[in-house]
């Protein structure tokens, strides 16, 4: 399906970040290390999920990918550009678009299509091509019919899709979504995650989804679990969710179905590890029933 020798789009080595707190005289009086040496390698076209609790450093990592924060230690290359190189900041931001948590606070214009055009306008794209990009981006997220609406009239999920369209219109190689569903209701959440998956599969956009909802990561190619500024686990969703005990230790839950399967297994039902969907569980249970 995918070529094995894909190019790395994001290469991070030993990434660190320290938040400094200054006292009244402008001297550093305390510091907090949010990232403590994180390695990251994302290949083109991958769907990566980063999981972690509040304060695990996942948002700090996301902001580094967009050069909003510059690592205080280690090196980070985004599409071949070093994020520390100030002359390449705009290249980095164009290569790795970012969607934030609060849909209201990232929509700039009071008309949907104008907001989607904001990124291309900043890049200096000619007018005719802006319209083309806006049309394509809005179609890709299924918001074309709302192009003339005011963002205030849209639901949370729709607003977040507009925000995604705004990023796609810049034609990035990679989209970083920093907890895009944290403020949405379940309906909006599946709307957004569905859109992101579709973009990944159909348009081949590399996706880095940061979240703390377990259900959203089961379709990822690779899951990275972070805790206290470090990567503690990495692997396929199935590998990760087989380690129910380890996840509980860092206060993360597994998807409900996985949890149910795990509990059944604990009480003696012979089920395999790492069941991710309701379908898989019913299938496995059906097999057991057939055996008896």
């Amino acid at each position, binding site marked *: 399906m995918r070529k094995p020798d894909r190019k790395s789009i994001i290469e991070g080595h030993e990434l660190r970040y320290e938040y400094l707190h200054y006292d009244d005289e402008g001297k550093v009086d305390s510091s907090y290390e949010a990232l403590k040496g994180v390695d990251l390698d994302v290949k083109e076209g991958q769907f990566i999920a980063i999981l972690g609790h509040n304060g695990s450093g996942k948002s700090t990592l996301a*902001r580094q990918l*967009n050069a*909003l924060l510059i690592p205080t230690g280690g090196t980070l290359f985004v599409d071949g550009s070093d994020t520390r190189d100030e002359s390449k900041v*705009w290249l980095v*931001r*164009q290569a790795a*678009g*970012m969607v*934030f948590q*609060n849909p*209201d*606070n*990232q*929509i*700039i*214009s*009071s*008309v949907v*299509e*104008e907001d989607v*055009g*904001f*990124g*291309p*306008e*900043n*890049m*200096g*794209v*000619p*007018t005719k091509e*802006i*319209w083309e990009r*806006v049309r394509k981006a809005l179609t890709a997220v299924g918001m074309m019919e709302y192009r003339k609406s005011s*963002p*205030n009239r849209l639901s949370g999920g729709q607003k977040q899709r507009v925000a995604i369209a*705004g*990023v796609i219109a*810049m034609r990035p190689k990679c989209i970083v979504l920093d907890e895009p569903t944290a403020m949405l209701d379940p309906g909006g959440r599946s709307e957004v995650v569905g859109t992101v998956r579709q973009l990944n599969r159909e348009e081949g956009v590399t996706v880095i989804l940061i979240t703390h909802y377990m259900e959203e990561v089961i379709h990822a190619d690779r899951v990275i679990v972070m805790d206290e500024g470090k990567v503690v686990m990495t692997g396929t969703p199935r590998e990760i969710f087989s380690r129910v005990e380890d996840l509980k230790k860092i206060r993360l839950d597994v998807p409900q179905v996985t949890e149910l399967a795990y509990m059944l297994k604990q009480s003696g039902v012979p089920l395999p590890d790492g069941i991710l969907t309701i379908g898989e569980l019913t299938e496995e249970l059906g097999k057991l029933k057939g055996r008896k």
Partner: protein
Amino acid sequence: MLKDITLGQYYPGNSIIHRLDPRVKLMGTMVFIVSLFAFGSVSAYLLATLAIAVVVTTSKIPLKYILKGLKPVFVLMLITVLFNLFLTPGRTVWKFWKLSITAEGIRFAIHMAVRLTYLIIGSSILTFTTTPNSLTDGLETGLGFLNVFHVPVHEIAMMMSIALRFIPILMDETDKIMRAQEARGADFHSGGLIRRVKAMVPLLVPLFVSAFRRANDLALAMESRGYHGGAGRTKMKPLVYRRRDVAAYIAMAVYLILMILLKFFVKIPVNIL
């Protein structure tokens, strides 16, 4: 309460006035207002009335809707008129206790009333027929020459459009905070003016905190989408003058010339300024 104000709101439509370039409409409004104050004669007012009547009819906005916009400023107008009426020195026409009305006062008051009414109608036609976005666009391009004097025109226009985007959000937020505080026993609706203003203070603190947080988020989002000021930016909807815009400019010039001609050649005696 705030929803009743029609002044300054966009009235959707597709008339020729709606479709005019915002720069033309801005210029037209300015010409109109200046003409009101520069030419204060009965004949000038008649011409201005004619001009306004033509614009209102072509814009297809119901007159009633426009007059409704006058309501919130009515008190202000009344005060101005009364001050002019009673406090202008001159030949006394009518006296009651310490108040006296002078002939000059009556003239001033009428002038003031006409001018203010027309000023408000004129500028509200601008906002009724122009979306806030194209209005900011018009300001940005129309005032672009100010860049020479180091006026950050693009930045000001950007601030205006962001403000327009966030006004409804912040209004919603105010509403939420008010209800949250009311649930805990705050009272915003009873007592005198001073008491009610005092009750608003605890409302402002959370509102400001949240506005700053939003501003911070928005700045990050704008930066991550490659915003770096007006330089090197292209426009999704560039402003282009069309034939109707040229026609409107010509109409404006004709209006001004007529005003000047009236001033010099038609003398109707009620002329103070």
